[in-house]
């Protein structure tokens, strides 16, 4: 497969169907497997590129949070049942390695430290929790958010944890002393609608690029009617050193759009996936442009994505039951 990246040639390479709408997805670091979750509360493991599917049952509710271990051997899932499950993803018959009741209410995000020793989980109970990846024992709790926490990532050095919440607050935690180090304001991603008595938006996704010294945060803005999905996707480009907003990447013509995930490509291009009434769209951003530099319209509405940087493949989870694998390069 020709894997020289060319985002303008992005195309759907594979599409595999499950029985129910999909919610989240991840690709294993070795690129040989993709995982997804669906509205039937199961997980699916898909062999890349054959599409062979294995279904995992273990959660009692939907799963929004997925992460592979750095060696691709285990998959961690965090469910709306508040449970974390470690799965042996690469065995012939994948099974549950460990299951713990981790949060009260939904788990919204999980991340694994660069050295694979620590698992971080966040959710609706507003508490960040750190776990031993090897044993599942709780290391500590980090209270400090005032609303649901949607996103979490480790600094590549492993010394800091970054968590983002509904209010648009991004907390940077020092993992040496387990204290809140600073808070970055991403408030353009937050909306309060007093007429509907609703708060909406938040930091739905984050990605950190240390080489560029930038954090990107994705979500939505212009939420004039959150209950009616009247809002538009937004990605913020933030200077990591001082937390100052460098650029707001807004995207026109995507009514109902919300950026569910953001990631970086190797060349420093930021990528986001948006759902909305116009369907699923991959959005590519350059730091010199406010609007996206390129957009790729997926066949149907997408709810999550994961990029495998080595193969330039991007997996997307879709409402129409499909997991799609797109190549960000020219068709062979």
């Amino acid at each position, binding site marked *: 497969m020709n894997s020289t990246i060319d985002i303008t040639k992005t195309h759907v390479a594979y599409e595999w169907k499950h029985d129910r709408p999909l919610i989240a997805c991840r690709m294993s670091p070795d690129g040989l497997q993709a995982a997804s979750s669906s*509205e039937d509360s199961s997980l699916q493991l898909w062999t890349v590129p054959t599409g062979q599917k294995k279904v995992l049952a273990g959660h009692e509710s939907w799963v929004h949070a997925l992460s592979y271990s750095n060696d691709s051997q285990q998959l961690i899932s965090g469910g709306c049942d508040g449970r974390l499950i470690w799965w042996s993803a690469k065995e012939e018959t994948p099974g549950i390695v460990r299951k713990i009741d981790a949060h009260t209410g939904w788990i919204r995000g999980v991340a694994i430290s660069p050295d694979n020793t620590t698992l971080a989980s966040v959710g609706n109970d507003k508490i960040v929790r750190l776990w031993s990846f090897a044993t599942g024992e709780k290391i500590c709790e980090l209270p400090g958010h005032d609303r649901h926490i949607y996103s979490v990532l480790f600094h590549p050095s492993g010394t800091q944890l970054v968590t983002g919440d509904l209010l648009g607050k991004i907390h940077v935690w020092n993992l040496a002393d387990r204290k809140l180090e600073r808070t970055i304001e991403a408030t353009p991603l937050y909306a309060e609608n007093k007429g509907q008595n609703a708060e909406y938006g938040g930091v739905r996704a984050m990605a950190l690029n240390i080489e560029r010294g930038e954090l990107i945060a994705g979500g939505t803005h212009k939420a004039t009617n959150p*209950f*009616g*999905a009247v809002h538009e996707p937004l990605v913020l480009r933030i200077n990591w050193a001082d937390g100052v907003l460098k650029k707001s990447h807004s995207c026109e013509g995507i009514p*109902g759009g919300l950026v569910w995930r953001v990631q970086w490509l190797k060349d420093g291009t930021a990528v986001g996936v948006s759902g909305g009434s116009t369907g699923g769209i991959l959005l590519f951003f350059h730091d010199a442009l406010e609007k996206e530099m390129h957009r790729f319209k997926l066949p149907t509405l997408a709810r999550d994505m994961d990029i495998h940087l080595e193969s330039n493949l991007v997996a997307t989870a879709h409402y129409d039951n499909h997991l799609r694998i797109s190549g960000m390069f020219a068709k062979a």
Partner: protein
Amino acid sequence: MSIAHYACGSQDHGLNRRRFLRQSLSGVAAGGAIAGGLGTLTHGAAADQLKSQDMRVVVFNMHGGLSQLESWDPKPGTKTGGPCRAIPTSVPGIHISDLLPYTAKQMHHLCLMRGVNTAEDDHGKGAYLMLTGRRQSAAAEYPQIGAVAARMLNDESRGLPGHIVVTPGGGGGKGNEAAYLGPKYSSISLGGSKPPPNTTKPDAINDEAEARRHEMRRHVNQEFLSRRRTAITDAYTHSYEQALRLMERKDVFDISKESTKDQERYGNHDFGRQCLMARRLLENGVSFVQVTHSNYDTHNENFIFHIEQLGEFDQSFATFVADLADRGLLEKTLVVVLSEFGRTPNINLYYGRDHWSKAWSVLMAGGKMARGAAFGKTNDEGTEVVDGQVDHGALFHTYLRAVGVDSSQTIAVDGRQLPIADPAAAPVWKVLT
């Protein structure tokens, strides 16, 4: 009570000023005189007896359309169930959504109506039929349950309005809620937990001047009423007298009089304070209180919004129900939790649910309602009612029967006998004790 006749040929033209003032200022007599002009029950003695029973109604209006699947009729593990789970309640065998853990502990007081089919997916029309028991039509206007309760249940000697609507911003209450019952039974709207505005006499006016002002007003009113009395003029007169009584009893609307502990138990948010206000009003004998909780019209991200909204609703509502029960008020108070409709079993592409009136739920409690019961059933995916189907008409009859009102009776208005509930419908007898 007497039947009044307006404008031309009124029997009350002979009402002299002294008699009018005496009645206006003396509680029950004043209420009777004014109410008499707006139509009466066919059987006045029965009405008096009903008022002596001291029954009340409180409606929690879950504005926008509460999802039955995330509240009273969860379907976990099914195609339509969504991510929320079902939890056991204080009644073995009855499960409700895990978004309502506090309410689940009060299930032994509650009665779920799980087979509601109102066949109306429009917000305005759905709200109308749920509050009036009739389908909206251009041919007639019908009074809302709040106006009917005020008409049938309110003891005006207490000096408090019989129909109060509590909303976060104080809106509402401006429509024709009372219809043919007359504006006297329209609601007084409270903004959040604040007392009605302008209920404090300005410092610059002393008591003597205040008394003279009102004597002058009554005199002029009486002169006018002797020639041109109508329901509207009665309502104006009633409004002034009611305002006077409200000023005397404004403490009833002051929830700061409640203990700090109670204020904490109900929650430090608007809805918690509104529930505490509702308890306070009911304890003081207000016959009807409606508390609006907004908003549930969750076409987008239904689940996170229901987590937020019901997270606020649950503890306050459960505390309210428990308090009514502990204080012996639940025997005398019908509690209704309703919406204009439910939400679609199908989960849309935005994780939302849309409008769905074919199979949804209403919660009732107190008065003569069965306790710890679930009536009616939907199919496995919640798309249809398969047992115990009821509609708005049956529910309206049931509201009234639950507070001891014969819902088959009529009200005489200007010589016409008008049924207080849809004669084509009947109460759900199986849920009434």
